[in-house]
């Protein structure tokens, strides 16, 4: 095993780098676009301050549900023409980042919407009574009161998409999953399989540990 490890060290390093690249791209897209979408879906839901745009709420909810209905591997294949337009290719970590980002955006939008729903209505109402605009409610109330929930949502997102990025390996997406498929599965190198699994466990544990630590730190409730 140690021999394999040394022999494959450059491959493992490269694969880890590719995984981290895919994660960085899809997490950024999810937090920026998915986060905004989740906030809007929440604010346009019944009883909230942008309720008058409920048409948007219904449409966005429908789209989120449709995208989330796709098993990731199907989404990966189904949108590959679109991926080719965006990334110029359908192979490699950059190409895999396209379906990953799309799945992550809608996944995170739903997570955020549900996290915000846990906020007591009264706090938002108090801000409305103070004359807060919807943007001020987001900035001064939602992002403040829900911040530990939001940190945990990012944690869940990161862990889920670490494993999704490994799925992308099946279609030549690169990354740790790709390594596991090529060596561990096609070449029956069980030790490579074990190394990749251990690597993934370490990554998941660190993300989870750090996420929970951060969530605790920002929670003053």
């Amino acid at each position: 095993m140690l021999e394999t490890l040394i022999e494959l060290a450059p491959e493992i390093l490269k694969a880890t780098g590719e995984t981290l690249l895919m994660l960085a791209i899809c997490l950024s897209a999810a937090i920026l676009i998915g986060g905004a979408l989740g906030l809007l879906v929440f604010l346009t839901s019944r009883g909230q301050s942008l309720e008058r745009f409920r048409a948007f709420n219904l449409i966005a909810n429908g789209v989120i549900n449709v995208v989330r209905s796709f098993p990731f591997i199907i989404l990966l294949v189904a949108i590959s023409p679109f991926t080719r337009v965006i990334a110029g290719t359908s192979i490699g970590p950059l190409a895999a980042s396209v379906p990953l980002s799309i799945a992550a955006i809608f996944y995170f939008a739903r997570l955020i919407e549900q996290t915000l729903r846990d906020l007591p209505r009264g706090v938002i109402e108090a801000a409305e009574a103070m004359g807060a605009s919807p943007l001020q409610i987001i900035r001064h109330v939602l992002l403040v009161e829900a911040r530990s929930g939001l940190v945990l949502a990012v944690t869940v997102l990161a862990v889920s998409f670490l494993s999704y990025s490994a799925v992308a390996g099946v279609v030549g997406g690169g990354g740790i999953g790709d390594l596991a498929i090529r060596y561990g599965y096609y070449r029956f190198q069980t030790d490579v399989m074990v190394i990749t699994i251990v690597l993934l466990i370490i990554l998941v544990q660190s993300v989870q540990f750090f996420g929970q630590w951060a969530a605790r730190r920002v929670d003053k409730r």
Partner: protein
Amino acid sequence: MPKTPSSTLAIELRAVSRRFADPGGRTVGVQPTSLIVPQGEIHGIIGFSGAGKSTLLRLVNLLERPDAGEVIVHGNTLTRLSAAGLRQARHRIGMIFQHFNLLHNLTVADNVALPMRIAGADPARIRERVQVCLDFVGLAEKADVYPGRLSGGQKQRVAIARALAPEPHVLLADEPTSALDPRTTLDLLGVLADANRRFGVTILLVSHEMEVIRRLCHRVSVMEGGRIVEQLDIADGRIPEGSQLASWLSDFGAVGPAASPSPATRPDAAATPHHFALEAAHA
């Protein structure tokens, strides 16, 4: 159009109504109702559960939009304002709630500063007002503490400081003492009476506790079935005999395990304020 001379009125509701179905499918809310509260008055609204007290209160700052009628606060016809105009007007209408509604991830000082930040006030002015208002409610030493570490009474004091910070013309109080014990209730009524005296803020208060209304209010509106059925002057702390309120008190007034309700004897409220609960504690 001639402008109505309303400069001495803090709150004027003109035939406002608001109807909606409660979870049981019954139509509840406020029937066309009018109410006038002059500047500087502490006005109570009392009634049974479902009488429309809270809805009426929430119509004043348009947290609840009336189906019909006009809402005028400090000479400003809120029902005719744009969304931005209404937000502007709300900067000078304070509100406190039964469950305080403080932000738990903000310190006490930041909670008090919040309405002024929302109104876009100058930071130096905010600091000054936070200091004044926390001093006023006696919690200056808790400025850097998070609300999670305060008692219920302290939380409501912070909420009062927060409501007073932007120097409101009107303070709306929705069952402000219903989550508090009798002694804390008494303390808090003192703070509200003080705010009225020192800052001249008009207070409109909803409560189902007769003792709260009797101790604090100058006048009271009695609500039943979505309308005001009676208005009484109680500035001297006495409920006029023969009024609807007096008859409710004799029917339901004496609370406690005793099955037979005794006529409303006035207990020594200073030692243990007796709660003439007109209804079981609000959900």
